[in-house]
């Protein structure tokens, strides 16, 4: 009963039109218990969450209702990007609900709902929904990708806006 076909072999991103949310769907050729563990065990989480160029260090990690979490990603130049939030619901191999804040923008917070689905044959699917407080924040999150590598995008827009200003 093995099948190599996947509905979501690559991460699928959907930006909702009606609520300021982003939905990510991804399938794994691994049991749901392992994928759940990789999201809730801090030592494992630190091994995959940050980009290769960044070193991720876990601060707090109390993975239960009301528990807090934090981690810091540091680049080669020593710039640190800090993230924190709290766990609201943790149901083994099924669900993690948590809040997420980038410390560089402390007024912003997103509500993260991560569901795990057992697909059988040692495979699973996760659906991660991030709900933000406005479409503006949601689009900002998409545009920034939260971290690095965005400079050229901003610069291009900068040029465009500067060109607009100069015509006034």
């Amino acid at each position, binding site marked *: 009963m093995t099948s190599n076909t996947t509905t979501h072999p690559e991460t699928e*991103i959907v930006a909702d039109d009606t609520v300021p949310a982003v939905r990510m769907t991804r399938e794994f050729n691994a049991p749901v218990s392992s994928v759940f563990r990789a999201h809730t065990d801090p030592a494992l989480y630190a*091994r995959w969450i940050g980009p290769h160029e960044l070193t991720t260090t876990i601060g707090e990690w109390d993975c239960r209702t009301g528990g807090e979490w934090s981690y810091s990603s540091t680049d080669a130049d020593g710039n640190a990007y800090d993230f924190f939030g709290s766990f609201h619901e943790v149901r083994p191999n099924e669900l993690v609900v948590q809040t997420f804040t980038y410390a560089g923008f402390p007024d912003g917070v997103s509500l993260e709902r991560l569901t795990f689905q057992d697909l059988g044959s040692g495979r699973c699917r996760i659906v991660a929904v991030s709900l933000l407080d406005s479409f503006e924040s949601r689009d*900002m999150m998409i545009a920034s990708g939260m971290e690095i590598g965005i400079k050229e995008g901003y610069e291009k827009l900068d040029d465009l*806006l500067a060109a*607009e200003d100069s015509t006034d």
Partner: protein
Amino acid sequence: MGLPAEDGLSRVFAALADPTRRDIVVRLATADATVNELAEPYDVSLQAVSKHLKVLEDAGLVTRSRDAQRRPAHLEAEVFDLMKKWIERYQRQAEARYVRLDQLLTELDEEDTPSTGNEGATT
């Protein structure tokens, strides 16, 4: 340090946060239009539509020709190409993260499998 055009970007997203302005953008994507034309479907004054257009103009999303008296508004598609690229990059970053998770899961699987055991050619 910092993001060079954060203010510009904020203006773009603030401009698009309003449903009427998003609707105007969608309509301008089809064709240029004057304030009068844009105001038609809405139950609002020409002045209100002009105000919305001004916000879109300030954000660099819309330009208006200066010569013609009717001054049709024009959508700057380049900005939207940029946003499409951002979404693609966001997708690539997420995928790269999950590819790292794939690798970790493979490693975990190898750690869990006894070195003497061979479960056969399951993939």
